[in-house]
């Protein structure tokens, strides 16, 4: 019998590799036998480990702590501050008292000078920090004594305490240096539960326990973060038993549901996907078209089909987990083509040749852009296209790079994604405020509404939680009426981990999550059974 080519190759390869394998080291140590080392795998690798340059700012960097941090419910709790900072009655002065006896990894004590240095560095225009935009309201930061920090704001900003999760860096290590190029960015010194042992770019980051950690010694001694960009490889190496936990795409993760020794965590998020409908397009500028699309999309089908069950229907920019969510804006999770067509009929969009509706000679037709490299957004774009066709709206999906998308944002709809669980002001103020119309990714669709502008401003100005809630309720109801975006889904981030691990406490995640702010935000307290 003639061997088939493929079998021959397989045999030759197996023979060759067997020969080489036999003379290499006999065994690699079993990861589970390493005991108190935890190994997690992520797709992305940080560019820097300096919080000032936007590393792990939202309170889970594992290497640094902010004045405040977040608990399992994302509620603010004191971090380096002894208690939650106090806000003056006019909302423009915020005072924080530092916890006693906190030390950096190198043993030097934390003082208010370090906190002042950290915030001033972010504000320094010479520093390449994208966080400066988040601290626009910050006028000055002072240290009247070694354990007190006083922030003065240009205007009252209700969610300011949420911004104090920024990790504090030691002034001593960075003073007089070019912060953008400092060695510190690769070998940082913080106060967090872990300190950096080594970072092999492109390969892994190794952290070791900080026994001086003010909240108690970490229960495990070492943490290895392996950088594995390819989704399939991450899944295969997880299956080969190399990792304790890894982030995987929903469909790859669900493959582990039935594998003994593993469990899948589907973590709720504030990470939404929706269709941005610009006012500069004559078809999508018509409220009837926008509302009809909002009724015609089948969100349940998208969650089950596109997301493989790892998500939930979305109706607005405030996530269901938020205390500010307005339940009244939630619509039907399934499509309602009857209501959608009735709406279009009433607005004068008459079915034309080929099934596409027409009004005043203009067909109900537009292009829907999505970033071509993002397969999830592509599938959502296709689902919206199919749903729209059923009510006579003709959509042409188009996959593009961001650079090709940018100049067309004013006229062409786009599948967008973002979201934060922390405060509705963070993203929505710029995304829907008319002042920001057409400024890059801020309000690209030129949405303008005085009701929304006022509500967003009130949510920012008012410190009283009740009044804030009322303001954001108004905001969400107005969005539901105007439909500047058709919100589709909130994602669930999916992780696979060994089921012998205890202490895993998922919390609602933001759009961004990687080495920090992932399922392992509190990995220093995890234990193995």
């Amino acid at each position, binding site marked *: 019998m003639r061997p*088939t080519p493929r079998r021959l190759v397989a045999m030759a390869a197996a023979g060759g590799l067997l020969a080489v394998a036999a003379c290499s080291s006999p065994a690699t140590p079993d990861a589970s036998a390493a005991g108190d080392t935890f190994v997690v795998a992520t797709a992305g690798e940080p560019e*820097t480990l300096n919080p000032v340059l936007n590393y792990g700012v939202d309170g889970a960097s594992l290497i640094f702590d902010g004045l405040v941090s977040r608990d399992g419910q994302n509620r603010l709790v004191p971090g380096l501050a002894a208690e939650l900072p106090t806000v003056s009655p006019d909302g423009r002065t915020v005072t924080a008292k530092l916890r006693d006896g906190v030390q950096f990894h190198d043993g030097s004590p934390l003082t208010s000078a370090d906190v002042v240095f950290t915030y001033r560095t972010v504000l320094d225009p010479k520093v390449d920090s994208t*966080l400066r935009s988040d601290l626009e309201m910050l006028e000055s930061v002072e240290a009247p004594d070694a354990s007190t920090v006083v922030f003065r704001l240009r205007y009252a900003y209700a969610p300011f305490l949420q911004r104090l999760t920024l990790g504090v860096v030691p002034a001593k290590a960075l003073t007089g240096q070019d912060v953008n*190029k400092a060695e510190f960015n690769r070998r940082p010194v913080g106060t967090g539960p872990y300190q950096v042992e080594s970072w092999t770019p492109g390969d892994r980051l190794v952290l070791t326990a900080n026994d001086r950690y003010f909240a108690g010694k970490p229960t495990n001694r070492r943490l290895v973060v392996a950088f594995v960009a390819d989704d399939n490889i991450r899944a*295969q190496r997880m299956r*080969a038993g190399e990792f304790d936990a890894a982030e995987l795409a929903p469909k790859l993760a669900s493959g582990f549901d039935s594998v003994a020794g593993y469990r899948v965590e589907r973590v709720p998020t504030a990470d939404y996907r929706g269709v941005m409908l610009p006012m500069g397009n004559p078809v999508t500028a018509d409220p009837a078209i926008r509302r009809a699309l909002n009724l015609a999309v089948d969100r349940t089908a998208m969650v089950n089909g596109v997301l493989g069950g790892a998500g939930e229907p979305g109706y607005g920019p405030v996530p269901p987990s938020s205390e500010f969510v307005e339940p009244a804006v939630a619509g039907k999770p399934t499509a309602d083509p009857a209501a959608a067509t009735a709406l279009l009929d009433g607005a004068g969009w008459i079915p034309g040749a080929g099934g596409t509706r027409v009004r005043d000679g203009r067909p109900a037709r537009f292009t829907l852009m999505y970033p071509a490299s993002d397969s999830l957004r592509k599938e959502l774009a296709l689902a919206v296209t199919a749903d729209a066709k059923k009510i006579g709206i003709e959509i042409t999906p188009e996959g593009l790079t961001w650079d090709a998308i940018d100049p067309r944002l004013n006229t062409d709809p786009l599948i967008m994604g973002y979201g934060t669980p922390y405060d509705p002001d963070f993203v929505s103020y710029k995304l829907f405020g008319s002042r920001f119309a057409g400024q890059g*990714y801020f309000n690209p669709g030129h949405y303008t509404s005085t009701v929304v502008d006022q509500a967003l401003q009130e949510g920012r100005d008012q410190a009283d939680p009740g009044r804030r809630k009322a303001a954001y309720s108004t905001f969400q109801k107005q969005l539901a009426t105007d439909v500047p975006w058709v919100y589709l889904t909130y994602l669930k981030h999916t992780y696979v981990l060994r089921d012998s691990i205890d202490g895993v406490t998922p919390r609602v995640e933001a759009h961004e999550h990687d080495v920090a702010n992932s399922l392992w935000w509190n990995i220093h307290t995890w234990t193995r059974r």
Partner: protein
Amino acid sequence: MTERPNPTQASEHPATNRRRSRLAGAGTVVRRRLAVAVPVLVATSIGMFALGAASPVDPAKQYAGAAAFTTTEENLAQIRANWGVDDPLPVQYLRWIGNLLRGDLGWSTSRHEPVASVIAARAGWTLLLVSAALAVVLVASLLLGALAAYRRGGLFDRGLRAAAYAVESMPVFWLSLAAIAVFALALGWLPAGGLTDVTATSTSWTDVAHHLILPIGVLAVSQAPWFVLFVRDAVADSLRDDHVLAARARGLPGRTVLFGHALRTALLPFLTLIGTHLPELVGGAVLVETVFSLPGLGAVTVQAALGSDFPLLAAITLLTTAVVLTANLAADLGYAAADPRVRLND
């Protein structure tokens, strides 16, 4: 350029020169190649910058990532100003070349460390991967190709050629995934990726070697068909040469005829083939590095390209160009050393 005669022709001209004199013109050739290499490198770097300038990618937005949604235009403009990426292209280029001449490769905006340290940390692994794969390919293709030619038309020859064509049609990343599925998951013999065991505290050579078997194997298998088929055809041809037939007629054993006579004749153009095939090998290495999560130049090059990181891209491109030019020169010198009919001082 050196002259590359068809090796299957005219072996009746006896080798009159000795090896020492064959390389007599080497110095001139090296000088002449350098005179070409410098303009080539300059042109390559200018091309790099021009292509980069034509790309609409905003490096500051790339740097901001998802924060681009919350970062103000002033904030991004300030970062661009800090980096000098809005300066006119000639200004950027002259600044870059000035730094280069002072031994400073510049600052990588996508990795946020000096270009020199990015390359220093990663080039070694890529070089190791490529050279080990090349060595495996050379040994395997010479051996298998010669054997197939010796029994031309036989079972082994037909099987080998079919296998070569089959492998040629398989993309490298597919081969990588298949190799992982078989050797890492099903058989459990080898790790599926990474440079060392994930929990290892140091980089020991045995650990690295163990982790590199699969990537090197996959890269070698994916690049082998070209070489195998070439050797097989060249040896098959030279087996019909007069001097080989004569050697056979003298009653020399088959192995001596095959490896001592036929393969030696066929070997010469093979040297040039290696030189010209090197860029493809590097391209394959980039994919293999990505699949096996190895910290080589592959992933970082992609990142640099996506982030309009001129300094890093320019340095990597220059490095690759220089390696290819050097390899071609080495191939030609080797050719001259091996083939008596080739004169360097033409």
